[in-house]
């Protein structure tokens, strides 16, 4: 089967603005959500992930209004998250034009089944945030850090009625210190669903290495936010190396 590569801008919103931080902290303003998404749309981003960080921090309703505005201006597939805590929130997100909802903090079998019954499992992305420290793996969940068995944790989530997973390496997030290819490679061995990886991608070589190791779907934050890189340039680089990228409409 031919590989289907996805390069996905991963954006955080807070008070209707985009923000970007490091290791999930110290967020600074990084632009207007609508204008930024329109730019990624024209750079042929394969999807966009939009997460309302403000809603997660303050435990409020996610910002469906901004989502609605983004959808009106671009025709790029969109995953929306940030404190989606019940079926109603998922309905609002999809009604506002999201294709998928990202469920992380509130990941429960009950909620997943409710959403999947209404919108199908392909509409749900399960998010999991991992920290690798001294060869141990921890899950960062709802502001708590718990040691987990990687295989058990991933297997448990894969059993849910979800379409795919998004895994973020927290200790790398926003640092541009390089992606953890080895850990990602361990994870893809045990999955029968697509996985989007995020956290630490910093150079074109870093992405090339991921593709080489069958890590096909990657989400980028810092690498495209505070740098000269853009999605089209990244894709062009990979195309030149022989990867079959979507470079034209």
């Amino acid at each position, binding site marked *: 089967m031919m590989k289907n590569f996805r390069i996905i801008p991963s954006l955080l919103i807070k008070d209707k603005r985009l923000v970007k931080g490091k290791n999930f902290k110290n967020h600074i303003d990084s632009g207007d959500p609508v204008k930024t998404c329109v730019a990624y749309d024209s750079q042929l981003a394969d999807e966009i992930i939009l997460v309302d960080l403000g809603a997660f921090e303050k435990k409020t309703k996610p910002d469906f209004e901004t989502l609605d505005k983004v959808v009106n201006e671009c025709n790029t597939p969109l995953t929306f998250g940030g404190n989606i805590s019940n079926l109603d929130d998922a309905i609002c997100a999809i009604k506002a034009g999201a294709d998928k909802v990202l469920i992380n903090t509130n990941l429960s079998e009950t909620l997943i089944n409710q959403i999947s019954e209404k919108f*199908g499992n392909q509409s749900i992305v399960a998010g999991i945030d991992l920290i690798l420290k001294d060869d141990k793996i921890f899950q960062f969940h709802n502001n708590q850090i718990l040691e987990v068995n990687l295989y058990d944790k991933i297997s448990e989530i894969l059993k849910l009625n979800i379409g795919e997973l998004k895994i973020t390496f927290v200790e790398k997030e926003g640092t541009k210190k390089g992606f953890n290819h080895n850990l990602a490679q361990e994870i893809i061995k045990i999955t029968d*669903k697509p996985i989007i990886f995020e956290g630490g991608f910093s150079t074109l070589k870093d992405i090339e290495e991921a593709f080489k190791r069958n890590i096909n779907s990657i989400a980028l934050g810092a690498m495209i936010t505070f740098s000269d890189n853009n999605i089209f340039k990244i894709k062009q680089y990979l195309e030149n190396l022989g990867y079959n990228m979507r470079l034209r409409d």
Partner: protein
Amino acid sequence: MMIGVLDYKYCNSKSVFETLNVLTDDVCYVTDAKQIKNISKLVIPGVGSAKVSLDYLKKNGFTEEIVKFVERGQDILGICLGMQILFKNLSENGISEGLSFFESNVEPISEVSKIKTNIGWRKINMEKKILEIEDNSFYYFCHSFFVELKNSEKKYGVANIAELNKIPAIVNKENIYGFQFHPEKSQKNGIKLLQNFVNL
């Protein structure tokens, strides 16, 4: 001319509506079955699940109106789940009976692929030319089920995903069109395709 975008409650009708709204002034949401006789083209969007959607359509009188609409020879376009419900039996959350414009059934992707969901951009291979779609162009897919065309209905498969066991990407039978992908989320290619459907 008026194009109706069917809003069957648990679906993403908004993205389809907004995309069409840029292309033509003559587009409206269809929220009541009675509206169907007043429109000239009907689009059934996706992002939903088979059982809930079909139950909703049956309970609210949409099914009969859609059948009459198709029998009048008017153009109908189903997108993703919207395409799948045009088929006979759908096996998501138990078996549901579809609108049965085709004899073939809808089955899980896991039958033909080791990855259970097809998410992302795929090149499609055109077997026939319709709607001025270019061969080998990219469209966005997001689905866990696919239309398994019976031999007698293979002729309705207009395009397939070559790299995914040739599962159907586009079906067409007279005035009935179905896209497994999301034109409303396929950037310029998708917009062009919807424009061509508007121009039919």
